[in-house]
Every structure is written in structure tokens, then in C-alpha cells.
């Protein structure tokens, strides 16, 4: 049948289908699996772009927005007032795991089974580390700072002014603040909104920040975290398959490792933009 045609085309000898998409010739000189992974990633990029553009549009529509380096300034082990440090470490974890993935793909091209397993395991550790960091970040935001999908205790002052209670102090327009709270005797959580007076003379209490901030944060970083989680699961499965020698027989330069590599780099790529819009800008 088509086996002879396949032999003629060098790129197609890796193809399991045998007949190179039945057209006797691979489009774009790529295997079916790799090309479809690219198009899946393209569609996924549009999903993420939809989320991030929604974030941008809502942020543009708000008169004030919580300043990210105030919101994200806590790190584990009691570190406070360290703006963006923890999330930079998280970014490094993803970048490093991306690099170890490149190494795994390289070892795959050399048909070096043990090398692939070693570098894939390091990638899995990096991905799991990122998930752990994200779990801590979420736990801190939900448990300590009481941010939820529809409550945003991180506000921003629209005008300059001063606090009226004994703590005193004045603030500038655009300053971000965290509304604190306490657990009442009946076990219910209560907010402690402090009275403030603006320079315009108007007196009010601390206002909650834009409601959508929490929902956008949890849904977008959650959707990305879910991608990381599925990536780790797939990496683990493929790593076990590599170790069992499944891909040795295929003699296609560990193409499966290459495909999961594409997905893993995409997860890193998305984080570049999540990091940009949520933390840096």
C-alpha cells in the first residue's frame, strides 16, 4: 500500500500512520501529532487571550485598581513588604523547568533513554514546585487576606486624605490598602473598615476595591495553574512510558517527549503574559 510512498519521504518515516495523512506527503513536513499540538496551542492561546483582554478591559473601566506590588508583597516564612519577590521566584521555577524540558527533548533526539527520564523528572519537580508556590499564594490571599471571588479587600484611594482613627496617618491618591478584619465572638468574620477623610472634605470609610479583581485573579491564575497541573500529570505519564522503553521501539527520536515539550513551553509562555498583566503592570 502506501508503505513505498512513505519510504520516499524522509520526514514521514517517523509517522505511525504509515501513509502520512493519506496524502502521501506530510503538510509542513511535520508529523500529524506535532502539527495538531501546535494548533491546539493556538486555540488555547486564544482562550487565554480572551481572559487577559477581559482583564484589561475591566481594569481600563475602573477609576482605581489595586497596585500589584502592594497586593503581592508577602512571601512564605513571614516575609512582608517584599514586592513581587515571591512571584519572581515562581517565574524562575517555570523558566528553569522549561530549560530542563529542552534538555529532555535533546536527549530524546539522541535516543538516550536515561537522559530523557532524568531531565523529565527535573521538569516535573519544577512544575510541582510552581504549583506548591501557587497554592501558598492562594492560601495567603484567601485565608489571611480574605480575598474571594466577589470580595476584594484591596482598595485604592481615589483622592488624597487622612485616616481619622487613632492610628492616624495620611495617604496619597492611588495608594493601595488592605482592609483588615477579625473573627467575632460568634465565630463570624467581620471587616474593620477605618474611617477616612479626603482632601475634598468628604468623610467616609475605607472602600472595597473593584469587585472583579478577585474573580479575574482566581480564574486566570487558576486556569493557568490547571494547565500546569495537567502538564505535570502528562509529563509523569510520558516519563513512565519513556522509562518502560515504550518509545524505544518507535525509533522516532522520542517524538512524544517533543509534543509534551511543546505543551510545557506553552504553559511557560502563557505565564510570561499572566506575569506581565497581573504582577508587573
Amino acid at each position, binding site marked *: 500500500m502506501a508503505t513505498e510512498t512513505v519510504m520516499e519521504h524522509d520526514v514521514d518515516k517517523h509517522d505511525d500512520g504509515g501513509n502520512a495523512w493519506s496524502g502521501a506527503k506530510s*503538510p*509542513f*513536513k*511535520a508529523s500529524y501529532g506535532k*502539527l495538531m499540538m*501546535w*494548533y491546539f*496551542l*493556538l486555540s488555547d*492561546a*486564544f482562550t487565554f*487571550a480572551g481572559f487577559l*483582554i*477581559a482583564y*484589561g*478591559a*475591566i*481594569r*481600563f*473601566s*475602573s*477609576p482605581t485598581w489595586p*497596585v500589584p*506590588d502592594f497586593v503581592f508583597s508577602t512571601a512564605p516564612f513571614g516575609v512582608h513588604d517584599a*514586592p*513581587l519577590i515571591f512571584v*519572581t521566584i515562581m*517565574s*524562575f521555577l517555570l*523558566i*528553569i523547568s*522549561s*530549560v530542563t*524540558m*529542552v*534538555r529532555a527533548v*535533546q536527549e530524546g*533526539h*539522541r535516543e538516550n533513554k536515561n537522559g530523557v527520564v532524568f531531565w523529565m523528572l527535573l521538569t516535573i519537580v519544577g512544575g510541582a514546585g510552581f504549583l506548591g508556590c501557587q497554592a501558598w499564594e492562594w492560601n495567603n490571599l484567601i485565608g489571611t487576606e480574605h480575598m474571594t471571588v466577589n470580595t476584594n479587600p484591596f482598595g485604592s484611594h481615589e483622592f488624597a486624605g487622612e485616616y481619622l482613627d487613632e492610628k492616624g496617618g495620611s495617604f496619597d491618591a*492611588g495608594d493601595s490598602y488592605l482592609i483588615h478584619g477579625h473573627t467575632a465572638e460568634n465565630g463570624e468574620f467581620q471587616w474593620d473598615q477605618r474611617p477616612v477623610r479626603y482632601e475634598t472634605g468628604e468623610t467616609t470609610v475605607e472602600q472595597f476595591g473593584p469587585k472583579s479583581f478577585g474573580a479575574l485573579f482566581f480564574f486566570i491564575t487558576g486556569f493557568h495553574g490547571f494547565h500546569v497541573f495537567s502538564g505535570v500529570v502528562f509529563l509523569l505519564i510520558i516519563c513512565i512510558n519513556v522509562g518502560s522503553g515504550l518509545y524505544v521501539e518507535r525509533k522516532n527520536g522520542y517524538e512524544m517527549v517533543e509534543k509534551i*515539550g*511543546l505543551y510545557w*513551553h*506553552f504553559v*511557560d*509562555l502563557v505565564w*510570561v*503574559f499572566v*506575569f*506581565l498583566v497581573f*504582577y*508587573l*503592570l
Partner: protein
Amino acid sequence: MANVSYEESIKKVYWGLTLLAIVTLVEVGVSLLGKGHIISGAEDMMWLVYLTGLIIIVLSIYKAYFIIYEFMHMRYEVKGLAVSVLLPTALLIWAIIAFFQEGDSWKNRRQQIKEKNQEKIDPQGMYDDSDVIRLDELG
């Protein structure tokens, strides 16, 4: 790919790691500068805030380019594949412009409604009490 030796390609990967790490650190530094953490008062200079924002966006796009072209090996794929994957994302430029414009418009409309609600509406002069004789004034 094929004409690069194994040792050279390994070197290239670790160079890529260094590059991405440095770009990320620069991004964080520039971001903190724009928020006034490095030089206090910098956050009040609007031109600096916009400039730092622009620098961060450009660096992020560079990082994305590097990841796609080096780590995902787009450089070594057929040109048609690269175009068919990357060209559709150009549509997003339009989406970004349109939706940010829309968001800005929502803000202006809300502000307008707020201002209009605070206006006293009195087309017939009913609440202008300078020419109203009150009963209690008549005694």
C-alpha cells in the same frame, strides 16, 4: 538543528536560561522603578510610568518570541507552519485595541452618569424657592 553539534546545542540552552533569567530580573526591576520602590516619587511622574510599562511589554514580547523560536523550535519548522500558527494571533491586536477602548468608554459613561445624577433637575423652576411664598411666612 541538525548541523549544530550536541555540545553546542547544550551551551545554547543554558545561554537561553541565562538570557530569560536576566530579562525577567530586568522586568521586575523596571516595574518596581515605575511603582516608585527604587526612587521614591517616581510613581508621580506619568511619563516614567508609561515608559516603564512600555519597556516591560516589549521585554515580555521578546521573551515570548525567544520561547517560541528557540525552545519550541519554531525556527527549525517550515515557514508555512510558523505563519499558520503565528498569523492568527495578529487578530488579537485588533481585539486588544477594541476592548481597551471599550473599557475606557465604560469608565467615561459611568462617570458621566454619576455627574448627571448629582445635577439638580428642575426644568420648570419648581424647586427654586426665591419666588415661592411659604404659608408660615404669611403667618
